[in-house]
């Protein structure tokens, strides 16, 4: 479930005016920016952008970029974009700046088939290349095969499961793991073409048969294999996305030096989806509410914005 609180009756024009007032003069009234934007859903934010343009002939996004700074600016920028545009930006940054390919795996595997399609369209509109074109050009070998396969698939979304197929493909995966041939064509084929329900049945079959989950089975030697790492992430994103996100947050907060990019990404992209469930999971796992952990590791407007997205009401 979502965490943000958005009022049912909002007037885009009034919101645009409030934001305009917040920008006027020296400095910015960040509190005002947060109090408006953090409490509007995607449709409402889009309307505010339109209203801002109608009223002031200026792109709200560009104005935000120039008025805000640092982690706060990055978070608000990602928040104000439409979900598919946001994912396109995240993917591009992951490819060209940070080489955090797990972000690409995340987007490709957590989004629905239609959502991923929308991301591919948004990516083309923004960068004048197809997503797969850029992914292929920036990666090589097995990592390329896996990532291109993941971003180009248009998975069937039905609930049908073929149990015999699930068994046989679980065996294929088991053989690949046993022979340490993680990147063979069959593994990639299964992961990058089967429907999510079929894959979950396959992973369950694996667990029933082997007594251990496939992600656990993929641990061990070789330890620092990038392909294996991304493979595990793909499986976790398909199988148990909530647990995956909880772990990302746990690592981002626990690490020596907080990983703001990861915190921003998870909170901004899931606030309107399932952040509430992730919060519950986080509390169960860490005995500390997520809000509290985030508040401890972040500061200033960035912190206020994140807490607002996490559901804090003024």
């Amino acid at each position, binding site marked *: 479930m979502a965490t943000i609180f958005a009022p049912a009756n909002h007037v885009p024009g009034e919101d645009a005016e409030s934001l305009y007032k917040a920008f006027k003069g020296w400095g910015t009234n960040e509190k005002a920016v947060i109090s408006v934007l953090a409490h509007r859903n995607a449709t409402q934010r889009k309307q505010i952008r339109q209203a801002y343009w109608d009223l002031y002939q200026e792109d709200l996004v560009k104005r935000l970029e120039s008025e805000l700074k640092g982690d706060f600016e990055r978070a608000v920028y990602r928040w104000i974009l439409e979900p598919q545009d946001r994912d396109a930006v995240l993917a591009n940054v992951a490819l060209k700046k940070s080489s955090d390919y797990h972000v690409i795996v995340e987007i490709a595997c957590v989004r629905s088939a239609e959502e991923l399609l929308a991301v591919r*369209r948004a990516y083309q509109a923004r960068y004048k290349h197809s997503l797969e*074109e850029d992914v*292929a*050009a920036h990666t090589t070998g097995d990592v390329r095969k896996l990532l291109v396969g993941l971003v180009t698939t248009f998975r*069937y979304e039905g609930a*049908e499961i073929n149990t015999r197929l699930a068994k046989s493909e679980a065996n294929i995966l088991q053989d690949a793991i046993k022979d340490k041939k993680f990147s063979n064509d069959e593994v990639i084929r299964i992961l990058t073409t089967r429907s999510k329900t079929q894959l979950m049945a396959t992973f369950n079959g694996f667990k029933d048969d082997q007594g251990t989950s496939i992600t656990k089975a993929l641990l061990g030697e070789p330890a620092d294999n990038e392909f294996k790492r991304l493979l595990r992430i793909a499986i976790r994103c398909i199988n148990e996305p909530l647990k995956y996100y909880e772990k990302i947050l746990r690592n981002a907060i626990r690490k020596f030096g907080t990983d703001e990019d990861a915190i921003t990404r998870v909170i901004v992209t899931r606030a309107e989806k399932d952040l509430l469930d992730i919060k519950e999971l986080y509390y169960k796992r860490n005995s500390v509410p997520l809000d509290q952990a985030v508040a401890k590791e972040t500061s200033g407007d960035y912190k206020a914005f994140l807490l607002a997205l996490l559901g804090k009401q003024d």
Partner: protein
Amino acid sequence: MAHLQELEALTKALSGLGIDEKSLISILGKSDPARRTTFRQRSTHFFIEDERSFERWDDHRINLLRLEFVRFENALVLWAMHPWERDARLVHEALTLVPQSYRVILEIACTRSSEELLGARKAYHSLYDHSIEEDVAIHVTGSERKLLVALVSAYRYEGPKVSEDAAKSEAKLIAKAIKNGDKKNPIDDDEVIRILTTRSKPHLKAIYKHYKEVSGKNINEDIEAADFILKETAECLCNPHAYFSKVVDEAIRNDADHNTKKALTRVIVTRADVDLKEIKEEYNSLYGVPLTQKIDDNANGNYKDLLLALMTRD
């Protein structure tokens, strides 16, 4: 005399593509038993003398003839379909037939626009409860699998923007891979696959132009005949009208086998609303004969009338 003429007319009515229904009705329909016996005795390519003293249909001939009778029906059904359903059914049929039908898959993947290909993938979900890439991956093996899965999954950028530098360097990459062809098949070269399956069509055209400047020949001329699939992929992507003309010409030949013949219906029906006019022009310049005339000479009955109707619309 009339007898002989009749025989000739009947033979013509039953040869070529489609059946001359009117001729058959007017000749055979009105004939008495004696005439039909003469017909059977004289048509030694259709009837053989059975050891028990009667003229028996040659089995192979009946099967071929039955196919000709339904050629019109199949064409009409295909014509009435939504283009998405059409392409989805064609791919599914191609997958469950002989490997030579890979041509149909790459034809559809390469000659449709990005949105048309997407539509076909959606229709495939509805019709077959699988994703297109899932089924292609399962039915195609070896080097062709990587190429075909990537081709059907592509969502190419369709804008005009091309990076000439990238096109130049990628032309060199392809040239190198082709030159190394005797050591490593170009279809196994990751870079060749990446370029052909992710780059936009305008970008590929720029690559072909640079390739020709550098090596003096067209890319598809240089790819060995052994690499038939790669050659056809290159052709489909950059000169679809020449590709379609070639396919249609092969289909009309007398010695064409059943699968090759089906291409005539497929090309005319699937391109009638798209670029049939350009294909006709290209055919004329390649073979010196108008395609409409070729079809008039080699096709019969309702099937011929349907094809000509599709080809002469304005």
